[in-house]
């Protein structure tokens, strides 16, 4: 990572993608820790079985997407994650009041870093004007209203929060991998561009 950053000029595209990769990895670690703290707080078993359906789902018409398109979809998913997390924070404060424990601290940190990662990916996508953004499916890729099954009471809400935290882990992991791929591709492109320009000069 350090090597990547050293090889990138500050403010360049490679530098931004490198920072985004670092931020996504850091966020993934935070989300993993957050789920551990939640299980500890709620006395949930370490391998609690849940529905396997994704809360955050993306509809992609084309099976073969470019990296830039995948980043675009990732950005959309992270935006949904942030919305879910903010909803979770609101519900928890309503249920329990404003806590000051480690769980609350990590949770708020995840929220802030997720916001930063969203901003970073948005900047990356803006710089790539030629990016082929997949056509949004109006029924699928829009930010859904948060739906919580209240019929099962607070316990159901807690299970839903558990699933949201798992979604965060999933999507931050996906973000770190996709952004890493993007970073590698742009580095290769930069190297090819540099070699071509050097050949032209000669």
């Amino acid at each position, binding site marked *: 990572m350090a090597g990547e950053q050293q090889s990138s000029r500050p403010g360049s595209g490679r530098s931004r993608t490198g920072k985004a990769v670092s931020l996504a990895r850091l966020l993934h670690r935070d989300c993993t820790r957050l789920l551990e703290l939640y299980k500890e*707080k*709620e*006395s*949930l078993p370490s391998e609690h*079985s849940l529905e396997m359906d994704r809360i955050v789902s993306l509809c992609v018409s084309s099976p073969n997407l470019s990296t830039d398109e995948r980043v675009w979809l990732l950005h959309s998913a992270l935006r949904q994650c942030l919305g879910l997390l903010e909803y979770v924070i609101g519900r*928890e*404060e*309503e*249920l*329990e*009041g404003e*806590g000051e424990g480690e769980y609350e601290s990590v949770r708020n940190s995840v929220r802030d870093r997720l916001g930063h990662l969203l901003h970073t990916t948005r900047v990356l996508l803006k710089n790539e004007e030629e990016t082929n953004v997949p056509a949004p499916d109006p029924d699928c890729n829009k930010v859904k209203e948060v739906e919580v099954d209240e019929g*099962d*009471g*607070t*316990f159901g809400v*807690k*299970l839903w929060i558990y699933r949201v935290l798992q979604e965060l882990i999933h999507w931050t992991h996906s973000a770190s991998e996709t952004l890493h791929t993007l970073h590698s591709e742009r580095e290769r492109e930069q190297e090819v561009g540099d070699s071509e320009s050097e050949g032209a000069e000669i």
Partner: protein
Amino acid sequence: MTSWHLCVVVVVLTVQENRGQNWLPVPQVVNVVTEWKEQRISVTWADGLLSPNFTEKLLFDIEILQDEWNHVVHHEKLKSGDHSWSWTSPIPLECTSHSVRVRSRHQQLISQWSIPHTIPGNDISSPKTIQVYPKDRVVHVGSITVFCCIVTEGHERIGGADMNVTRISNRSYEIVKHNLTPSPSAGYNLKCTDTSTASGGTTFWVGYSPNDQELVCETDLVSVECHWSRPRNTELFGRRETQYTLNGRKCKDLNHGKQLCKCSISLDQGEKYRNLTARNPLGSVELMDREDLNRRIRMQAPLNMTISEVHARNVTIQWNWKVEAYKTLPLMCRVQLNHSDHKGPYNNTGLSLLLLTDLQPDRSYRLQVCCGTDQHFWEWGSWSSVKFFQTKVDRPDALDIWIQRTSVHKTLIMWKCLSANDSHGQIRGYNVTLESSMGSKKQWFNVSRDKLSFLLELGDSSEDHVITVTALNSAGSSPPSTIGVPRLPTDNACSEVSGSNGSFDLSWPASANASCGYIVDWRPTHSWHNGTVEWVKVPAGITRSRIVSGNFKAGVRYSLSIYTCSQGAPELMEKKEGYVKEMVPAQSVQKLQINPSGPDVLLHWDRIPLESQQGFVRGYFVYKYDTSSRLISIENITDPDATTHTLRNLPHGSYKFIVKAYTSAGEGLGATASIKLDPESYGLIVVTLIALGSMACLFFFITIICYQKRKWMKEKIYPEIPKPKLPEWSALPVWQTLDLIQCPYDRIIIVESEEGLLEQWGGEGERHYTPDTDSSGPHELRCYDPVMSGGSQRPRTLVWSAPSSQDSSGSLGSRPTEVTYTGVQTPPTPAVSSGLPSPQDALSSEDYRPQISATFPMQPQSAPSNLPLLQVCLEYQPHSQHSLSPETGSLGGSLGNPTYVNSFTFLLNNTASEKSQEEDPSSSSLARFNNRHQQPFYCNPTYHSTHPTDG
């Protein structure tokens, strides 16, 4: 359905008409209300059709049936004629189905049960997930709560062993939780699983209902603020937290302290009372405050504080009021200066201007103001913002001075440093004036500000002097402080005083001269200088004082003097010395010495220096130890001035003495001295000297007696030997006269062989000694050989019995040879073989054992050693003329008598012998040999020089 009911009614009416009123109609359940959260079922029913003649009231029985098997879980006979009834289920109603039925009762008549009205439970539906009830329940701490778990169809419940589980229906299980403790903020989660992969659960909270109390409200005439206490936290948070309303309005700015809450609402003049309601899911409490708010006014803080005028001792302050109503109220204000000093209160209507007096000059102040109502005062209001100011400088206060007469012509004037409260500004210096009482002379001195004393030359000591001291600052000089110079004390009498609790309690007799009281001064006794003198002034009429000083130290002796204060000079009344706290001496006694005097021992020491005594020395302990450091005795010397001590009649032996001084605090370090009393050695010396003296005297007398009786002894012991009468044939050289021959120096050759070391005389290639008459030759052994004739003497062999070969080899090789002289052997000669005993025979073999001690086992007691024979051999010539008969004549016969020869040698040639010994080293050697006959003797140095190993 309606037609079916109508049919039933018609049938009942028909039967009733036909049979009369000897039966009871079945009640009709009209309504069943289910309150799921409260787990309550409310039933309403109606009587059946009764005859108009039946006017009495019916009673009813009611039953609750449960689950699909209709188990009766509750049966109740109602004693009133009510037509409604409520029942709270111990389990959530969702857990299983509940049915209710009613029957009427009158006297002995009982109707049939009504048709059961069923409330279906959730265990009859077929959800895909496990359901747990109740959901989100809040229960009291310590209560018993029943949960139920409805498993999915076709499966059974599995769960933790810690759960008390009872099956209540086909798919429903009851779980009872006892003694619940307060839950965390997120609540407890109860999870349930079954044999499928499904799981479910519920969350519940455990806490307390509100128990707030002691509502007190006050107003600042703008809003109402109420306080109450909360002795116990409800342990419920978030949406389950206690909600408060004050007079129906939700509390704003609710501030939860640990055990104190407050809430404020706007003031509504129409409200006489304040009503606080505290409510949470477990209950509510209402508190009422009925006090008139006009008696509960707590004012807001003054605004815009300003300091308008500042002087040395007063200042004017002003402020404004935000609330207009305050300007017409009778107010009471107080001022806080420097956190601690409160001034006031100051009263006025609408007070907003204040003159603060009695301030200290040249001092920084921190000021705050708060006010309250003067009428029906309830509480002080809020403090204003802080203001700082500094008063101006003023003249210093008078100095506290004291004097010490240091000598006839000198005196030391001292004064105490003025505190910040007394200096009223920075001190710039001091003026000292010395004036004689007659006014003949006046001197002024300026003293710098860092000095607190001044040494004055008095000049004429016969005059009385007066000293005046003033302090100066930027505002002027202090009032003068005057004191007369006291006279030198003539009486140095000093009494002892004991301190307690770090101070001295002094009292003294009243003095008529003490017009202005008394002065007590003190200082360390053993060392003092200007700064160590302290004093205190006692007002007139008081004759006791507790002297306290931060400089007092335990173990330091202080001198305290009490003076009378009058218009003239102070006069010394008493002088005392003491310790605020005595300690054990810090040092041991000095120079402890010990002097024995026969069986007595005198201990002497020097006293401990005063600064090390650390208390009044009350005496000394003398510890006596023996050689094994065992304490024998302790002697207590109660005389504190003692410097000697005598221990009498000590038995012989070694002693160690430790001397320790002690004070009232205990004994200090010890000085140690040791001594050994040994009269036995002394007596032994005396006895030895006496014995030697006696022996000397005895020898002296014997010598005198021998000298006086020498003729008699000669006659008795050594009579004259008549000269032999020689016959004529005596000229014939038949007999050869004895002649002194000198034994040649024999060389001893030690030959190491298996038999031992063999020392031989002479030999081929060896040195041969010719007979030498010169007796002065060194280290010559000469012997008398009666058989020797001419040069026919054969070499004789001395056989030395050396140590074993092993030993000798070792000794010869590397260290001085140690040889044991075991005997002298003469080899067989013709003379010997002729039967004439030779001196060598006398010396030979068995008899001659010079190395052996005097107790030769093989030698008769009377036989002397052989060495005297050698002496005879050397020096007794007259015997050579002794006639020897051929029959008996053998020189060996006479010479072989050792007794004879010894006596002769000792008595006659003692002096001569000694003389000759001096002249003749060989004889001297023999003499030494004789004297040391019991010791190994190696007188012949050639023995060593001819040792084969020496080459």
